[in-house]
């Protein structure tokens, strides 16, 4: 087990190194940092001075080493556009994205699991076929369209929910939250529903598929034959065996959540990291893009490794030796 964890950590480290290398190339070679630092009207001598002052004249591997060392100290450089440190810029936007993602994932997980179980019990009943059709819609309607449709219905026609922004927020320590005010919660409903929809459909279909396979197994037939109450058979014997892939899936979908958070934040003008990333892409603000990639990679890798280890611990069938 310990060797497995160690191997996983080393693998994660290798991927992370690869990502930082790519980011270094973006940072250093896409767009001319000298020009950006010195400004348009600098003389050749001034440019040379800046090149030396920032070490841009040294060999690539020295520059990469310094880039890594700086990143480890939380120094990711300065935004080309707003001229403030990039890390602060991104971290400032982090709570908005985190709250949106957390609420969306919780919704998707609970509702998806319950509906998946319900549907698996009588897959060919009319109401369950309807739910399945709904889930097909959930995976077939792109996230951006779901968002706009929700805005059309709830903001434009019914005028009950706000279509953009985060509403009123309060600051707790360094954390700016929208979860503690009624206005903030109201603003959260549509974006969270938009972000949850796809995951919900995926988790529901995964639960249903898993349950259908498990329900056909011998040990479930035995449980029924023993005369156990349906509740016990379904939840204790069957669902338990389906939970592992479902939980794993939820953890591994984190990258997907980040991606669709970008889409959701664009539609609802949600002031999160995704919104910042897109603006930076339009403005060719390489330091922000590179830092976003590195932070996203770090988060995704940590979550993946934790999920993998939990998976190995939870499932006695799997031993990595």
């Amino acid at each position, binding site marked *: 087990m310990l060797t497995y964890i160690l191997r996983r950590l080393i693998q994660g480290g290798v991927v992370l190194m690869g990502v930082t290398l790519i980011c270094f190339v973006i940072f250093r070679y*896409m767009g001319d940092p000298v020009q950006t630092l010195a400004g348009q009207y600098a003389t050749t001598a001034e440019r040379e001075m800046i090149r030396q002052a920032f070490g841009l004249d040294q060999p690539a591997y020295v520059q990469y080493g310094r880039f890594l060392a700086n990143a480890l100290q939380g120094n990711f450089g300065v935004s080309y556009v707003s001229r403030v440190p990039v890390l602060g810029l991104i971290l400032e936007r982090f709570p908005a994205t985190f709250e949106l993602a957390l609420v969306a994932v919780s919704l998707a997980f609970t509702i998806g699991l319950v509906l998946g179980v319900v549907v698996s019990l009588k897959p*060919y009943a009319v109401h369950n076929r309807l739910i399945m059709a709904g889930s097909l819609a959930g995976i077939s309607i*792109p996230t951006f*369209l779901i968002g*706009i449709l929700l805005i059309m219905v709830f903001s434009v026609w019914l005028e009950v929910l706000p279509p953009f922004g985060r509403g009123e927020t309060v600051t707790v320590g360094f954390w700016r939250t929208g979860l503690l005010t009624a206005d903030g919660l109201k603003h959260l409903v549509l974006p969270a529903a938009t972000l949850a929809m796809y995951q919900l459909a995926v988790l529901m279909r995964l639960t249903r598929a898993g349950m259908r396979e498990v329900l056909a197994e011998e040990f479930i037939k035995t449980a029924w034959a023993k005369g156990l109450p349906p509740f016990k058979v379904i939840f204790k014997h069957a669902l338990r065996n389906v939970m592992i892939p479902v939980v794993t899936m939820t953890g591994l979908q984190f990258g997907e959540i980040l991606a669709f958070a970008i889409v959701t934040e664009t539609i609802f003008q949600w002031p999160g990291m995704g919104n910042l*990333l*897109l603006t930076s892409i339009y403005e060719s603000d390489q330091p922000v893009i590179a830092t976003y*990639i590195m932070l996203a990679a770090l988060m995704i*890798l940590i979550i993946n490794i934790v999920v993998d280890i939990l998976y190995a611990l939870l499932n006695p069938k799997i031993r990595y030796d």
Partner: protein
Amino acid sequence: MTEHRIKSRFLYHYLHDPSAIIGSVLMVVFILAALLAPVLAPQNPYDLETVSLANFLQPPVWMEGGQAPFWLGTDDQGRGIFSTMLYGLRTSLLVGFSVVAVAGTFGVLMGLLAGYYGGWIDVVTMRLADTFFSFSTTLMAILLLGLFKERGVITVVVAICIVDWVRYARTMRGSVMEVKQEAYIMAAKATGAGDVRLLFKHLMPNAIAPIFVVVAVDLAVVIMLEATLSFLGVGVPITQPSLGMMIAIGKDYVYAGMWWMVLFPGAVLILLVVGINLFADWLREELNPKIERNA
């Protein structure tokens, strides 16, 4: 069982599955509409000679103020929604089929090699696949396009191919690993068949079946991805018709009650993807020996 019987069983199940029929009919209709766009469309929305700004923001023809030939209304540039949609459909399907062809071929080859030889090629392919999946193909495509300076259909296809091929490689590898245990593969080896013959004559045809489902699912995934990228403004350029781009433009007019710029292209996109998914669902159940049909 003979080849003939297998085929007729497929046909029987297909004809008795309404959702499979609906799905394939939708696909055929949209492909025809895209192919015949120059004939069907009343105007070419990207030919400046036939587009006039004077026709901007017109509602569909059955509403007050709507007029022919703009059956479904116009956008903020005076382009007919109906015509733009037909041309946008071409972009969707062009990107979809190109990616499936290129990424599919490359992925299947890599999966074949990884599954058969194992070793470093297997380790590298599977590590890449794991990494790409955990970063999500959508996120990686957005980031890649964020770094590319060029905007165009080819750029979009390239970016999606870079992240998408692992889907095929992973499925193919699993299938090859199963098939290579079979007695006939050993028999072929024993009779002195070379690697190339073994890979392409014996392994490939017997391991390819699961790829059909991946192709169907992936086509829907790629079409949605292209629309999403174009919606975000990192996909095809503004000079290129695209369903995602149309919806992005129409979004700003939703608040003013002008729904036609979003709902029509949105409906086409959804119906196209639903059609492909219905067909893929049927194919998956049909090819999965674990699920008993009509239970």
